[in-house]
């Protein structure tokens, strides 16, 4: 199978619980060896989508295909899908090695082969020395590794992680993110992570699917997601931004002029004149000073937050609007609180989103 052919295909999957639509015609195609993150707020249906892929929840409509096989109606134990649960769900009556061996045993693998596979999986997660430990005698981070070893030992066609790192403290979590990505690439695993931590999503994945209310709003590489958010929701959910509301004055070829309370601004977008929109830009695009051919607005500095390599400056532009600029030390002087300043940013990095789509 080629690297780029579709490996996991979710097509038009919907799921309702009573009156609530939890998954709303989800389409998702993942290539072999790809690491994809489902990112979204609590209750948007991330877990339900994973469960539908694993066969633990039956979708009402739609299809799931894995490795060229339609698995929509295949029971979970015949899907060859690995799941790492948030609570790990390690079997407390088995040892570390017993947990890792479980999937191999139920597949009827020979004992000698099982021992070899268990050793390999445990050494991958650097837990070889704890093979005979009881689960209750492990730290949270160690349990997380055992859960991972247990899932990869059976060489599943796709690995699903449901907030698998969220129980760890921040430092350990950041270490695990990097380690996990390296490890999954090493074993050439195809994986889906679920998280509501945007940093985790950007660090871990080749592509990020931003979910909202049972739909995938955008599926893109982390960089593109940040630079070209497809919706206001995606813009808000990943990274910081300046957002100003206004009304479209004129539209021309993918570009609009917008009348706002801080002045006239230009942005990328297709709208009819008179549409209410939100104009947005990422903070690192804003510079001190006014230039031609750019958007600009002025106001009084409300706060200055030093964050090491960068400084976040929030400017009160009046009329309830504010501007957020991220200045690096190289840009010269950092303004002080209460200073009157003018900020400008390129039109090509300014986006307009429909107002009603505000989450």
């Amino acid at each position: 199978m080629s690297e780029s052919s579709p490996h996991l295909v979710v097509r038009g999957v919907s799921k309702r619980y009573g009156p609530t639509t939890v998954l709303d015609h989800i389409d998702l195609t993942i290539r072999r060896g790809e690491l994809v993150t489902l990112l979204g707020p609590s209750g948007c249906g991330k877990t339900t989508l994973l469960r539908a892929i694993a066969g633990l929840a039956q979708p009402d409509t739609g299809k799931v295909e894995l490795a060229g096989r339609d698995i929509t109606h295949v029971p979970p134990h015949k899907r060859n899908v690995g799941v790492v649960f948030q609570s790990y769900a390690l079997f407390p009556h088995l040892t570390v090695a017993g947990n890792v061996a479980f999937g191999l045993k139920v597949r009827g693998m020979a004992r000698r082969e099982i021992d070899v596979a268990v050793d390999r999986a445990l050494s991958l997660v650097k837990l070889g020395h704890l093979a005979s430990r009881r689960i209750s005698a492990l730290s949270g981070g160690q349990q997380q590794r055992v859960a991972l070893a247990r899932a990869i030992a059976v060489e599943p066609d796709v690995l699903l992680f449901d907030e698998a790192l969220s129980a760890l403290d921040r430092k350990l979590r950041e270490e695990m993110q990097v380690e996990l990505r390296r490890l999954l690439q090493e074993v050439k695993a195809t994986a889906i992570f679920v998280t509501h931590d945007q940093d985790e999503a950007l660090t871990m994945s080749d592509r990020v699917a931003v979910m909202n209310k049972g739909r995938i709003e955008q599926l893109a590489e982390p960089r593109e997601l940040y630079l070209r958010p497809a919706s206001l929701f995606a813009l808000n959910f990943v990274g910081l931004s300046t957002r100003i509301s206004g009304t479209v004055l004129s539209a021309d070829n993918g570009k609009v002029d917008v009348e706002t309370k801080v002045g006239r601004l230009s942005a990328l977008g297709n709208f009819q004149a008179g549409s209410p929109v939100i104009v947005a830009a990422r903070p690192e695009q804003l510079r001190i000073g006014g230039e031609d051919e750019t958007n600009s607005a002025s106001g009084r500095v409300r706060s200055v937050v030093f964050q090491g390599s960068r400084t976040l400056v929030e400017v009160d532009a009046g009329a309830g609007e504010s501007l957020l600029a991220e200045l690096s030390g190289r840009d010269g002087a950092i303004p002080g609180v209460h200073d009157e300043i003018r900020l400008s940013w390129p039109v090509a990095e300014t986006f307009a989103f429909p107002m009603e789509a505000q989450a």
Partner: protein
Amino acid sequence: MTEAALSAPVAAPAVDRERLTAVGFVLPSFVIIAGVFALPLMLLLGVSFVDANGLTIANYKRLLGTPYYLWVIWNSLRLGLLTTIIAFLISYPAAFALARARGPLRSVLLATLFLPLAASVIVKAFAWTILLRSDGIVNETLMALGIIEDPIRMIFTETALIVGAVNIFLPFMILPIYAIVAQLDSRYAEAAATLGASPVVTFFRVILPLTLPGIIAGVALVFSLSVSAYVVPTLLIGEKYPTLATTIAKAYLLAREPGFGAAAGVVLLAIAIAVVALSARLSREPK
């Protein structure tokens, strides 16, 4: 609290106080157990080795060397084992059903389990005799419906005994199993399934081992209750099914042979302890 905080650097007194508190909590139950159980038990053991002529093992010889009394012991064992096995087979699925039930249904089911515990064993055993008598409700109904012509002999059979015992001791099996099953995280079964285990394999490799503590508690309770049951066999089967419990009663009340009664008591206790210990042993996961 303040005092403890102030004296925190001096660790030793704090530890001592903790230990003292622990002892304080344990002491009352220790005194009760020692006074109510251990002491009488020692007396029982002592008496069982005594007869009119002094120290002897004659009581045990008689009990374990006479075919009649071996049969009595066997009767007790049969009652205990059959009741326990049948109660387990009914209780295990029932505990799962109970744990799955939601809302009012669950409350009703739990109430039907707990309420009978409030009625005395004698009342319940009598209720069974009323049901199963030749002119009892079951026979009357069957005859009225024309299913049978003459009453079937139900009372005073071993079947009646086991049915009654199972009914009366059932809550002691269901409740401990239910307590475990209700806490069982459904993720374990899901994890097993995603690892390739079919529902049957998941049951034997995951569900059963994880619920074993409840099973062991239930088995230990029901076996020790039914092997030593007195009222149930007396009312539901009577003379023709003597058990260790009825033998003990006879030895004390009719025959005035306290030594022999004590020996029978010791044997009964030994059986109960042996089964409880054995089931606890089995609970340990074999490597």
